[in-house]
């Protein structure tokens, strides 16, 4: 008996994943535990392992397809087995690889998924379909409780109860067109949360240059949405100042030169800044806050988001309980996460739950910038380059290295002065980072 292989739910918040590539081809023998394909979620790329042994009989999606989690993506069974019953009587036999490679619709026909082109095979009543459309509820992942698995009205109603609620105004804006609800959103969605949809009537200028058109998906799509959402829905104010970096630089030298058994040689300037932030923030809970549903959620513990530049775009993994970690542990966790991100192997669960974020462009020579908030966080620290600064002491002017700090706050929640006070405290702590590590 052949087995249908569903796309696993790769993290609590993952709704769908993109098939990156098939590792096993049709007809190839697969052992239980073998990776059969690689998929990409919002921020991570992972392998899907086969739970069964046998021969890969069908690939139900093509690379590039966005597949709802728990949707069947492959069939494994005995060589030559008839799988038409499994994939639906209307389905063609497993397509030959070359057909699958060039013909997306052929593969889509086999799916039970919910993309527009595969609607014919979704069993759903007109009433349920209309309700889902009216509520802008995607059909992915909704199980039908009607006869023969048909999605009926009560299934949509149940899904709506589980899903985010739209305010009446937001609902009306979506119905009028031009806006859509953010994907995977939870809680109450207001007009501020809505994302403008691309207007299909926008004329595309005649192109004579060679232009590659890249559809927005995966991490890029999420970044695009989040950044715009951030700037549209918060009142961002950036404060700049510098901190005396002499001790910072000295300390970093000493760490680098320390005995290998301490495990401190890899600590970077950025790790030190993270450490300073993690140790300073607990005294400023208004900045270590989340702004959700018109309420301020002040956190006692610091879960520190660190911006990581990857080939797929910006990813912000979270160092949990950063205020309780030693410098060494903090540094090693930050490195683990950054590496995982860059290799596309970060767990989706490591990408959620941050209370404050740090982003560092200093190594690229950026002197100062305006970091964009990562809502619902209310503050983000941008770290710039270390530059010499003329400082007057007594009657002389000294050139002292300073590190640039840019703090963006959501002025809805945090006023300028508290932000400045935090930045001031952080600067003092950076200036005596060696002592801070001893606390």
């Amino acid at each position, binding site marked *: 008996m052949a087995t249908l292989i569903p796309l696993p739910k790769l993290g609590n918040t993952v709704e769908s994943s993109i098939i990156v590539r098939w590792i096993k081809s049709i007809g190839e023998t697969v052992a239980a535990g073998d990776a059969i394909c690689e998929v990409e979620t919002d921020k991570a790329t992972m392998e899907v392992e086969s739970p069964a042994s046998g021969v890969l009989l069908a690939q139900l999606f093509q690379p590039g397809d966005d597949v709802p989690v728990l949707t069947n993506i492959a069939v494994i069974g005995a060589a030559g087995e008839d799988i038409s019953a499994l994939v639906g009587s209307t389905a063609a036999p497993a397509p030959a690889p070359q057909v699958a490679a060039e013909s997306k619709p052929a593969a889509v026909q086999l799916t039970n998924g919910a993309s527009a082109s595969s609607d014919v095979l979704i069993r759903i*009543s*007109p*009433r*349920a379909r*209309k309700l889902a459309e009216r509520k802008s509820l995607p059909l992915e992942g909704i199980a039908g*409780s*009607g*006869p023969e698995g*048909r999605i*009926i*009205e*009560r299934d949509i109603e149940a899904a709506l109860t589980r899903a985010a609620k739209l305010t009446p105004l937001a609902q009306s804006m979506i119905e009028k067109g031009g806006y859509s609800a953010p994907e995977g959103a939870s809680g109450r969605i207001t007009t501020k949360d809505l994302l403008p949809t691309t207007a299909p009537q926008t004329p595309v200028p005649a192109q004579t240059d060679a232009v590659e058109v890249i559809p927005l998906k995966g991490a890029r799509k999420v970044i695009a949405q989040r950044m715009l959402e951030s700037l549209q829905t918060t009142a961002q104010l950036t404060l700049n100042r510098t901190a005396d970096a002499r001790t910072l630089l000295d300390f970093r030298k000493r760490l680098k030169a320390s005995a290998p058994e301490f495990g401190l040689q890899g600590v970077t300037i950025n790790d030190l800044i993270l450490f300073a932030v993690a140790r300073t923030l607990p005294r400023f809970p208004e900045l270590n806050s989340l702004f959700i549903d018109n309420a301020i959620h002040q956190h006692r513990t610091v879960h520190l988001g660190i911006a990581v530049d990857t080939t797929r775009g910006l990813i912000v993994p979270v160092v949990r309980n950063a205020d309780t970690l030693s410098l060494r542990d903090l540094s090693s966790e930050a490195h683990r996460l950054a590496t995982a991100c860059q290799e596309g192997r970060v767990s989706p669960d490591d990408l959620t739950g941050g209370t404050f974020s740090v982003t560092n462009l200093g190594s690229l020579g950026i002197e100062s910038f305006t970091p964009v908030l990562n809502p619902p966080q209310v503050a983000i620290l941008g770290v710039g380059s270390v530059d010499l600064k003329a400082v007057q002491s007594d009657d002389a002017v000294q050139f002292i290295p300073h590190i640039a700090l840019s703090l963006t706050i959501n002025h809805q929640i945090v006023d300028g002065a508290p932000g400045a006070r935090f930045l001031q405290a952080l600067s003092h702590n950076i200036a005596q980072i060696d002592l801070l590590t001893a606390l």
Partner: protein
Amino acid sequence: MTKSITIDPAIERQPGTLSGPTIPLNAYVSDPAVETAQYGSDALNRMWHDMAVIRTFETALDMLKREGTYKGVEYKHGGPAHISIGQEASVVGQAYHLTPDDFILGSHRSHGEILAKGLSAIQKLSDAELLAIMEGYMGGKALRIVEKHVGGATVKDLAINYLLYSALAEIFGREAGFNKGMGGSMHTFFPPFGIMPNNAIVGGSADIALGMALFKRVNRKPGIVIANIGDASMGCGPVWEAMMFAAMDQYHTLWDQEIGGAPPVLFNFMNNFYGMGGQTKGETMGFGVLARVGLGVNEDAMHAERVDGYNPLAVADAIARKKQILLEGRGPVLLDTLTYRFVGHSTSDASSYRDKSEVDLWRAQDSLADFGHYLQANGHAGAGKLEAMQAAIEERMLAVIKAAVPTDISPRVPAEQIGGMMFSNTPTDRFSDAKPDVLLPMAETRFKVTQEKFRSGVDENGKPLPKLKCLTYGEALFEAVIHRFYEDPTLVAYGEENRDWGGAFGAYRGLTEALPYHRLFNSPISEAAIVGTGVGYALAGGRALVELMYCDFMGRAGDEIFNQMAKWQSMSANVLKMPLVLRVSVGARYGAQHSQDWSSLIAHIPGLQVFFPATPYDAKGMLNLALRGSDPVVFFESQRLYSEPETIVPGGVPKDYYEVPLGEPAVRRAGSDITIVTIGATLYRALEAAQILQDKYNLSAEVIDARFINPLNYESIVQSVKKTGKCVLASDAVERGSFLHNMAANITQLAFDHLDGPVVVIGARNWITPAVEMELDYFPQANWIIDAIHERLLPIPGHTTTTNQRASEIITRNRDGI
């Protein structure tokens, strides 16, 4: 069934022999001197003239049909044309003594009959009367065309042109035809001249003619009614039924003598010896001489005789004598009028079934030529007179054809207007201002008893009241019927066991005491004639309420329901109305031939209204509606309900008169999760299902009683389905071909986006109805409805099915034909 006539074995068992009257055959003896004295030259010449008009009309039509041209006018007549060349003497002789009060009804081959009757009527009506008729008929439309394009030196001349034009325009399907082209060649008729519907169903006119005669008798109207039917129709059951019905003893034994005896109906068999190609003498019948059949019908042998239809004077003589018998109430009469058609049955008939030599024998005795010789030999027509008459007729015919052919002069009715002709929709309290004939004041009838009963089956707290003290469904019907009997003097009711017994299910109990025989009587068990006479009675201008007892017996009256009752309003272009209500009772417990709901068969036939009340409130309110209407209604009742009181409609059955709005379904139970629509007594099982759904599964079902099948306003049903998204339809009709499938298709189209599942139809199994003890497995029950909901619309957590209502059964059952 009557107590006043004893069936005495001492008499019935007496030995003896039976003999009947002798049947005269062609007994007329021509005496030119007597004929001259009786008719005069003018009338005799007019007879020839009328025969020549018919010959010319039929010849012209035959040429247009066969060759597409007549004297230079080109026209391709696409419809039928059953030509009667050769039969002219039989129709002109018949029409001579008839007045416009005398009705003729005919067959598919009736052009000659209507022209002869029309020409006769023109002679008998004054110029003023003729002008009033022509001006008043359809707003004078045809008259205007005839005045402009044909003309006429005198009013009678104009009227003849009007007759020819309107008949031809009707045959060509034109708006200015007698029936706006809705009848055509086989049906054209013109009531102001006493020309009544001609029927394309063989023998179809027999019982309709009897119904018209019954109307004349009951309502004391002048004139007789002649059914012109062919010799082959003697093989048709409804013709025999009509003759039996016409010959009932009760007209003489039980009816008030003042009414005047039997209905004045003449069954005139135009005996041309062929039914299509089947030869009735020597091949397809055994009577030898058709007139012999009269001997088998009653003691008078129906005053039957064979008349020489090739001599107009022989026919005129016979009609004069028979008319007298009929007016005296001594009918019915059977005439075997010999005739012969020189042409085929229709233009496609190559006459392969008869020798040309046979046709030549009759041609040699052509009545037109012979009568011409008679006129000339006896000094009625001088040299050249007949030729001059013939030339004038042809000139007239050409002018008429030139007006009837072009569609700019004689356009067709816009097709969409046909819909507006299907029903007359003119509610009428009474079709006569006469005082209704009754035997008791209404307050002293059973009406007094029913009025005093509890009007609802439950008290104000919803507790059931003793059934015997509550007004039942059957009694609610009674209240509607007796109301109309005391309002409309033309109303008559009959059927099997209508008197004394009070109808098989007692709805008419108490009417026997209230009404004289001529308004309420037992008919023979002749379902075709029961309905067919009702059709004739209604077409003649009265209101008839006829009853077939079991729905299953409708098959016996198939043609009368499907082709007659349904069609004559529209085929007459609303010149005639059909205030006919046919009560049929849907049985149960009585097996395969007494338990069927055939409402779907009726629903399929355009022109019928179909009612099916399921509560006493509706029984009265819908029968009131039907009995005040002007349209034909097949009124279904349920034998499960006759003894049931009103338990659904709050307040019960009103004492006063009221009507249920036409075509409006009734919401019997409000709900929000699922809609259940029923037709008929299935309502109660649906309500039971709704209660179980509520109590056991917390599902709220809305139950709608369609009440009407046609017309039917879908708005409230669609509104409910839009609300609930789920719809089950149920009735006791077998599932295959059930009207519910129509309803399902319509609901699906009207509420598609709102549907949460397919509209489910639940009907009785496609089997014979089994024994009463097995009916739970045959007729839809509450658990079928719940199981169907569970399997096809909304799986109900915790529900276990006890019947197989899965959609996959549709495939299986249809594949097996069951």
